[in-house]
C-alpha cells in the first residue's frame, strides 16, 4: 500500500500498559477527505489510538505516518498539531469566560508569544475566516455569548470550530454526540458531513444510529485490533462484531 496516498497510515502499532496490550498490531488508514467511523466496546483501544496519533502515547512498535510527509512517532504533540491534526476531546472544554468569537480568535493559527499577542489585531482575512467558521458551526447568532452560557451541544460545535480555525487536514473527534439531544445530534451530523471532503475526519462514537447516519466506512476495534471494516450493513452482519457487541 502506498503510504503517500493516505492521509493517515498506521501499521502494526502496538501499545502495552504493564503487559496489557491496549493496541495489538493495529493497522489502519484514512483516505484524504474521508469520514471514517471507529466503533468498538469499552477498552477496545479507541482512545489509545487517538493518543498515538496525537503523540500523547508512544507505541512500543509499529509505524504511524501522516500524509507521507510526517512520521508521527518522531514529532512532539505541538508539532503534530502544527502539522495539521486537530483533536476534539470527549469532554468539551471551551473558554467559559470568553465569548464564542474570542474562543475562535485564540484558536486562530499564527502568533503565540506574549509580546506578539499583546499587539495582535485581527486582520480582515482572519475576520472572514472566523465568520466562515461561525457559519459552519451554526453559532453566528451567538458570537458575543460567553462560552459558559452555551448548551452542551453548542460547546461541542464551538470546539469543533476551534479546531477548524487551525485548518487541520485531519480531524479526530471523540464521541461528538455523547449527551446530546436528538436535535443536536441531527445538527452535529450535518456539521460533520459538511466537513467531509475538505478534511479527513475520524469519529469515535458509541451511538449506532449516529454512526449509521454519517459513516461511509466503519472500522470496528476490539482488544486493540481491527476485527471488521466496511459499510455499516456489512459490519453489522459480521459474526465477530455480533459476538463482541452481543447482537447489536
Amino acid at each position: 500500500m502506498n503510504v503517500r496516498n493516505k492521509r493517515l497510515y498506521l501499521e502494526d502499532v502496538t501499545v502495552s500498559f504493564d503487559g496489557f496490550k491496549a493496541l495489538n498490531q493495529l493497522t489502519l488508514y484514512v483516505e484524504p477527505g474521508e469520514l471514517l467511523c471507529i466503533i468498538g466496546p469499552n477498552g477496545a483501544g479507541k482512545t489509545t489510538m487517538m493518543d498515538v496519533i496525537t503523540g500523547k502515547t508512544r507505541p512500543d512498535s509499529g509505524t504511524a505516518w501522516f500524509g507521507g510527509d510526517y512520521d508521527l512517532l518522531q514529532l512532539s504533540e505541538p508539532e503534530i498539531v502544527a502539522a495539521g491534526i486537530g483533536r476534539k476531546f470527549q469532554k468539551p472544554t471551551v473558554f467559559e469566560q470568553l465569548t464564542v468569537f474570542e474562543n475562535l480568535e485564540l484558536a486562530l493559527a499564527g502568533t503565540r508569544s506574549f509580546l506578539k499577542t499583546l499587539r495582535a489585531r485581527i486582520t480582515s482575512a482572519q475576520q472572514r475566516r472566523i465568520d466562515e467558521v461561525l457559519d459552519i458551526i451554526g453559532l453566528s447568532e451567538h458570537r458575543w455569548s460567553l462560552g459558559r452560557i452555551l448548551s452542551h451541544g453548542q460547546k461541542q460545535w464551538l470546539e469543533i470550530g476551534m479546531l477548524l480555525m487551525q485548518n487541520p487536514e485531519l480531524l479526530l473527534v471523540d464521541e461528538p454526540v455523547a449527551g446530546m439531544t436528538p436535535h443536536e445530534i441531527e445538527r452535529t451530523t450535518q456539521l460533520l458531513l459538511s466537513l467531509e471532503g475538505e478534511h479527513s475526519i475520524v469519529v469515535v462514537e458509541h451511538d449506532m444510529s449516529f454512526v449509521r447516519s454519517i459513516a461511509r466506512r466503519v472500522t470496528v476495534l476490539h482488544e486493540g485490533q481491527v476485527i471488521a471494516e466496511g459499510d455499516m450493513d456489512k459490519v453489522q452482519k459480521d459474526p465477530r462484531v455480533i459476538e463482541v457487541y452481543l447482537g447489536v
Partner: protein
Amino acid sequence: MNGDKQVPGLWHRTTLVARGGDGRFDRGGKWFLAVLALVAIGVSFLNQVVPSSSALHISAFAITLIGKYLCYGMLALSVDLIWGYCGILSLGHAAFFALGGYAMGMYLMREIGPRGVYGNPILPDFMVFLNYKSLPWFWYGFNHFLFAVLMMLLVPALLALVFGWFAFRSRVTGVYFSIITQALTYALMLAFFRNNMGFGGNNGFTDFKDILGFDLHSDLTHAVLLVITAAMLAASYIACRAIVESRAGRVVLAIRDAESRTRFLGYPVESFKLWLFVFSGIIAGIAGALYVPQIGIINPSEFAPINSIEVVIWVAVGGRGTLYGAIAGAVLVNYAKTYLTGAFPEVWLYALGALFVLVTIFLPRGIIGLIPARRPAKRQPRGGGEYQADAAATNAPPIERVIEK
C-alpha cells in the same frame, strides 16, 4: 450576524461590551481615573492653597494618609492583575513592594549624607553604629537617583523573574504556589532582619531628610509626592487595562479558566504567566518605592507574610478581575483600618477577618459587584442574542472557585 460585515477592530469593542466593559476605557475605569485625578489635585490644592485656619484645609497628615492608600491601591492592582485575570494567587506580593521600598530607602539614606547623627558623609548612621569600615558594594550607585530608580524596577522584576521561572516551569500552581510565595516573603523578612545583611536590620531605614533636594518634612513635597503617586497609579492602571484588553489578556483569561486547553492550542502558558508575574512585581515595586518617602520608614516588617495576605483581602473585598475594584478595596479597607485601629484598636483584626468571610459569602464579586451592570440592551452588539447580565459585572468567576484551584 445579519450578513453585515464588521469593520475589523469593532468586534473588539463589542466583545468588551458583552463582558460588561465599555470599550477601551471601561465605565468603571473612567470613573476611577476621574476620581483619582480629582482627589489628587483637589487634596493637594486644599492643603497648599487653602489657609490652615479654614475648615476646608486638609492636613499634611491626611495628605500622607491618602498617599499611603494610593500606594496600597497600586499593590492591590498588581495582585489583581495576576490573581483576578490569571488565577495566580500570590501571597508574597508584599515582598516586591518592600524591595522597591528598600531600593528607594537606600537612595534616601545616602541622600542624608553628613547630616546623620554621626555625621559620616558616606556611611549611613546604622553602618557607623555597627562598625562598618566601608560601604558594602551593593550600596554603590544609590547616591544617584536614576540608578536607584533603575534598581526599584529591576530588583523586584528580577526576583519575580527567577522565582516565577522556577515555579511556573515546574508547573507549580494553585495553593502550592500560594504557599511558596508565603515562604518567599517570610525568608526575605528573616534575611532583612539580620544586621549583617547591610540593610539596617530590624530598624530598617528612617530619618530621611530630602528627596532630590526637596525637604521631606515640607507639606509641599508631600503634596507633590501624592500627585506623582496618583499619576503612577493611573499609568499602571492604564497599562494593566491595555494588557487585559489585548489578545494576550484573553489568552491570560483562557489560562485561568482552562490551562491545559490553552497549552493545547499552542500557547506557551508558562511564558505568559511569567511575563504577567514580572510585570505585576514591577508595579508592586514602584508602589513600595513611592510609599517609603511618604511614610518615612522602611523596615523588614514590610515583608511579613500577613501583609501579603491583607493585600489579597483588599482585592477580594473590592472585586476581583476588575482592576479598579482592587484599588477601591485597598483604599476602603485601609481607611477602615485607620479608623478602627484608632477608635477600637482591639477590634481591627476581627473586623478584617469578618469582612473577608462576609464578602466571600455574600459578595463574591466584591463591593464593585454591588454596582448594577450597565443594561445590556442599549449597547447590545448586533446579533448577540443570549448575553446574560450576571456575566457583566466582572470577568472573574466566584471567589471560592478560584481559591480551590
